């Protein structure tokens, strides 16, 4: 059985202004997370690092150990599963502390894509090198995550008839949550009218369908439930976890644009946590694009395939709705720190630190990470309560 809890949270940067390097931000976040947990830096004996797909080992890698001055590591590695990396690292940390490989593991993601004066599209348009057939992306002019997820959204819309208003409902819900989050980048009201009038990025995705890149770092500390009980802040227990990697090719008979690894990850995680989808009180999804939220709701069985647009249309995932989703504003209105954005908001909510946006019921949170073109998925089931052992 898993015996693991998140006990520390450190958040640095979260800004579109120029900052220190990703490595410096990561070191600060790790040390802040340790302090938040009530641990000395020398008590951190595991460090699991992940970085953005476009960043190099020199920018942020194993060198983080020395940057954060952590002399006593029994576990150290850089992990890469695209957007699923952050949760994949927390899963590894949970297994490590359960079995004694290490006792207090820091998991961190950092990125500083926005240099002085750089726009999001300059930062992310061609951030990843593309070779072979994949280079046809750039020769055709399909840039950024927006291009790729616009293709995916077009497929979903053609198959199920989802409307702009339904995509807009996801963006508007995220903004309504962000308005109550002091850390969110965009906090002005967003109406359906403004959403529909916003410029196209890559049709069918508008400006407000896309994430808000920032420079920043987020770290968490994972330890055992027993040790968590003696530490400074309320423990957030890891009850379940799962991954899904469908490996679908671009080939007739496969559907890479709809579906993905969420269903498999959810089956594993829910069985481990001994819960069903109806037990989930709130969700923190990897919502780099509005369509990913629709896809994730369907993958986990909150609604049937093709029905997520209707599911979100009446404010169900917005403040006051039956299923709070991305309660800090997510990637869309909050800040895009890939897999760590949803993790951090889950920790805040399950500790009861949500302030104005605190959800009334937080017994079970589902946290998801999405990577590639729905190729790599990881999730956590978190709770302020210890699981049944």
């Amino acid at each position, binding site marked *: 059985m898993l015996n693991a809890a998140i006990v520390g949270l450190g958040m640095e940067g979260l800004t579109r202004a120029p900052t220190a390097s990703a490595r410096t931000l990561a070191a600060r976040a790790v040390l802040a997370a340790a302090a938040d947990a009530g641990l000395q830096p020398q008590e951190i004996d595991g460090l699991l690092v992940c970085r953005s797909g476009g960043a190099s080992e020199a920018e942020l890698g194993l060198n983080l150990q020395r940057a954060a001055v952590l002399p006593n590591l029994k576990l150290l590695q850089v992990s890469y599963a695209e957007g699923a990396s952050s949760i994949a690292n927390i899963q590894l940390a949970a297994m490590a502390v359960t079995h004694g490989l290490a006792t207090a593991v820091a998991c961190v993601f950092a990125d500083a894509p926005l240099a002085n004066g750089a726009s999001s*599209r300059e930062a992310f*348009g*061609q951030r990843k*090198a*593309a*070779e*072979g*057939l994949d*280079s*046809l*992306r*750039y*020769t*055709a*002019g*399909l*840039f*950024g995550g*927006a*291009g790729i997820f*616009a*293709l*995916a959204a*077009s*497929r979903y*819309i*053609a198959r199920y008839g989802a409307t702009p208003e339904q995509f807009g409902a996801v963006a508007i819900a995220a903004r309504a949550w962000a308005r109550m989050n002091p850390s969110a980048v965009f906090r002005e009201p967003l109406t359906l009218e403004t959403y529909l009038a916003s*410029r*196209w*990025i*890559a*049709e*069918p*995705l508008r400006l407000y369908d896309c994430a808000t890149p920032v420079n920043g770092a987020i770290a968490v500390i994972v330890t055992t439930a027993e040790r968590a009980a003696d530490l400074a802040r309320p423990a957030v227990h890891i009850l379940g976890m799962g991954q899904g990697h469908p490996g679908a*090719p*671009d*080939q*007739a*008979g496969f559907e890479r*644009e709809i579906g993905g690894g969420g269903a498999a990850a959810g089956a594993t995680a829910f069985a481990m946590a001994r819960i069903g989808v109806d037990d989930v009180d709130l969700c923190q999804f990897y919502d780099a694009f509005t369509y990913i939220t629709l896809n994730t709701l369907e993958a986990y069985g909150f609604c049937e395939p093709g029905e997520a647009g209707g599911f979100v249309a009446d404010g169900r995932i917005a403040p006051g709705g039956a299923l709070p989703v991305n309660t800090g504003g997510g990637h869309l209105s909050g800040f895009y720190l890939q897999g760590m954005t949803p993790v951090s908001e889950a920790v805040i909510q399950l500790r009861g630190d949500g302030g104005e946006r605190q959800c009334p019921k937080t017994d079970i949170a589902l946290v998801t990470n999405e990577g590639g073109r729905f190729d790599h998925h990881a999730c956590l089931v978190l709770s302020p309560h210890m699981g049944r052992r």
Partner: protein
Amino acid sequence: MTSRPLPAPDALSAPFFEGLAKGRLLIQTCRTCGAHQLGSERCLRCRSEDLDWTTAEGRGRIHAATIMHTVFHPAFAGEVPYAVALVELDEGPRLLGGLRGVAADEALVGRRVRTVIAEIAPNAYAPVFEPVQED
């Protein structure tokens, strides 16, 4: 003006790009089971490594499409808005390319297209799709 991004052939895709330069759209065909594909060193159906390159007809149907409105790359500054499509060739593989000859407000997914091999820069070739009538 920055030049356009160019194809970056690797070992696996080199015959595909060499084919384009000769005016042929090549796909992989499994010598063991006959399946067609692109982008894998192993047959996706039977896992055989015994693959051949054969000429595809270039006809297919749009699987997914987008109209790019944002200038992510300076070479495309004069082209926005432009369409990009992921096309499912009749033989099975899906291929990404520019899409020309479509109206701004028309539904793209599901349209029949043919493949044209375009010289996007001197001696650099990429597939481009054009709509055709339903068969």
